[in-house]
């Protein structure tokens, strides 16, 4: 395992890709959060963390690139010759991915909440919403990273996996809009990772949400771990 971690770390360290993705996560998340905070909204906490909606795309893209990118360049066969235990390779990648995303998420979420406190009048006290939303956002971004890793492993086509994961995250509201029946709308909202998971951002009028933040995160986690499980099975079983 240590050898695998070391190998993956060397791959990450020696090309700028990871640094670029993580920097972009922070910059884009904070930029949109600060803009939304300056514009204001009913839900002040959600406004101050709106950038999570943007940052999740970068996190997902990095996770997919980290895994499926190797298949695109053919590096994967070298990796598997050096480290034949594929589950160990996958675990090592997951550990590095989660560490990186955790760092980027903590930095961007903290900066967003601090900016919100400065920019928004009567921003609620930290324990009264912001802390829960911030912690939830970090958890959500970690789950999206795992979802991306799983999708990359299951599909191998990095571009295909990116489009499917981003479609899953962003297009749910469009699909919901196609149904006029409120009950159907709520069913879809509760079932999809992007809508259910991002209820962690909401802090006002919680009664009208189709799903509460904690069950919402559980939905996102289910998506992430099922995808990861399928991805791991494909990753271990298939030829390069």
């Amino acid at each position, binding site marked *: 395992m240590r050898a695998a971690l070391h190998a993956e770390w060397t791959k990450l360290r020696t090309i700028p890709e990871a640094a670029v993705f993580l920097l972009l996560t922070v910059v884009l998340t904070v930029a949109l959060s600060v803009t939304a905070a300056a514009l204001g909204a009913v839900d002040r906490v959600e406004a101050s963390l709106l950038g999570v909606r943007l940052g999740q795309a970068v996190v997902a893209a990095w996770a997919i690139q980290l895994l499926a*990118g190797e298949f695109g360049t053919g590096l994967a066969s070298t990796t598997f010759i050096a480290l034949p235990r594929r589950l160990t390779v996958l675990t090592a990648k997951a550990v590095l991915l989660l560490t990186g995303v955790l760092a980027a998420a903590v930095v961007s979420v903290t900066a967003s909440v601090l900016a919100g406190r400065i920019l928004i009048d009567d921003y609620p006290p930290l324990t009264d919403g912001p802390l829960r939303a911030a912690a939830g956002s970090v958890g959500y971004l970690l789950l999206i990273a795992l979802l991306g890793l799983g999708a990359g492993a299951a599909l191998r086509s990095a571009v295909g996996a990116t489009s499917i994961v981003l479609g899953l995250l962003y297009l749910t509201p469009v699909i919901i809009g196609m149904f006029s029946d409120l009950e159907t709308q709520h069913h879809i909202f509760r079932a999809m990772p992007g809508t259910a998971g991002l209820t962690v951002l909401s802090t006002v009028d919680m009664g009208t949400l189709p799903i509460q933040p904690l069950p919402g995160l559980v939905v996102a986690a289910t998506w992430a771990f099922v995808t990861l499980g399928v991805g791991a099975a494909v990753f271990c079983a298939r030829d390069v």
Partner: protein
Amino acid sequence: MIRAEWHKLRTVRGWLGGLIAAFAVIIGLGVLAAFGVHTSCGQQEGEACPAPPIGPGGQAVQDRFAFVHQKLDGDGTLTAHIADFTGIITYPPPNHDELVPGLVPWAKAGLIIKDGTKPGSAYASVMLTGSHGVRMQHNYTEDKAGPTDARWLRITRSGNTIKGYASSDATRWAEIRSVDLPGLPRTVQIGFLVASPANVTAKPGPHGGSIVQARFTQATAVFDHVDRTGTWTYEKLGDDGGMTDWEKFHHNAGLDQHGGTLTISGSGDVAPAGNEAGATIAHTLTGMIVALIAVFVVAVLFITAEYRRDLIRTTFTAMPHRGRVLAAKAAVIGAVVFTGGLIAAAITVPLAVHLMRSGGNFVIPSSTATGVRVVVGSAALLALAAVLAYAVGALLRRGVAAVAVAVLLVVLPYILATTSILPSAAAGWLLRLTPAAAFAVQQALPSYPQVNMPYAPSDGYYPLPAWAGLLVLAGWASAALALAVARTRRADA
């Protein structure tokens, strides 16, 4: 060169399959959207909603007002003075706890000539409004401003031509407009109109979108110096039978006649209907954004795969003019996506509209020109967005990053503008500046200055006209292509 690129696109099975799948998704989601719409009114599930009347121009309209009228055979004229114009607004913000005296901006009191008493029939009217002065309006969508301080109104009919005049002293008359109502029968109804549209406010919703509230209002106008004699008949035109508490317990709509003075109270509006009246034809194309993502994949791979497989060196050896190669590829992917999108949209819109209508739903009718604009515009949106994604791919040379950038540029702004908690002014700017501006081609209903509606992006109203929205996207696509060409010329393959 174009043939070579077309050959490449055609022969990679996954790409062609991806594009065909994308176009199938447009049709499939259009059908799904058609089945997803269920309108039911009344107590029982599945009870059909009353469809709004259709105006002479083919639009869905509102035609609900207090109509005091008499028959007019042939040509004639009606003059009257508005001695008083007042109204009430029930429970407006901030506290929603009071009946407030006052008129909404587009409350209407005036003279009207109308082709009978059927809702949706042709009319022309000269009227005093709550706060927009005297106006001449006809056939629901047309509106022209007259003097602001006039209280004397006159309407004349001569054949199919109706003229509206206003005056502040009953001696000097200013003609506001002369309008033609083609096909007006010899016998029409002439008389008075009093209407008062709902007091509408929109506030941002806690979880995104906006919450639109409409409150009952009523206007009362006193007409004197009426120059026509004979019996006046009161009619609550377009009455749905319902009555508000205000009408039941305080002051009902109606006519109160004392000698030559007529006091008329009424509610409602004579105006084009908005998309609150039903689904629009654009609803059938909401699934197009899903297809857009599949199109991005093919457009991006069309170039990044060449780099990854080193085919690009062969391409550049065969065709050394790199800028032209990139342009040829862009033309091929754009043309293929446009053609496929056009076919898919041209099938989807009529098919899904037919399914919605046969399912008992009211679909707001659109003119053929609007239908063609929505279909062709949507295909152009797909094609330009494909060129943008392709150009980003050529610029970054990395598939994952290019697809993510394309989604963040085109899809995310649209989602943020229509479904997030961003205030509607900021949403408007997103739909002016980002490539998502092009979704304006899908606005099926125009917005009207003479109707007081929020017209928010979340309701399908865009800040830019269709052509301008497409132009914004075209600007982004060409800028990205120019950058890609510059990089390709400079850098190694």
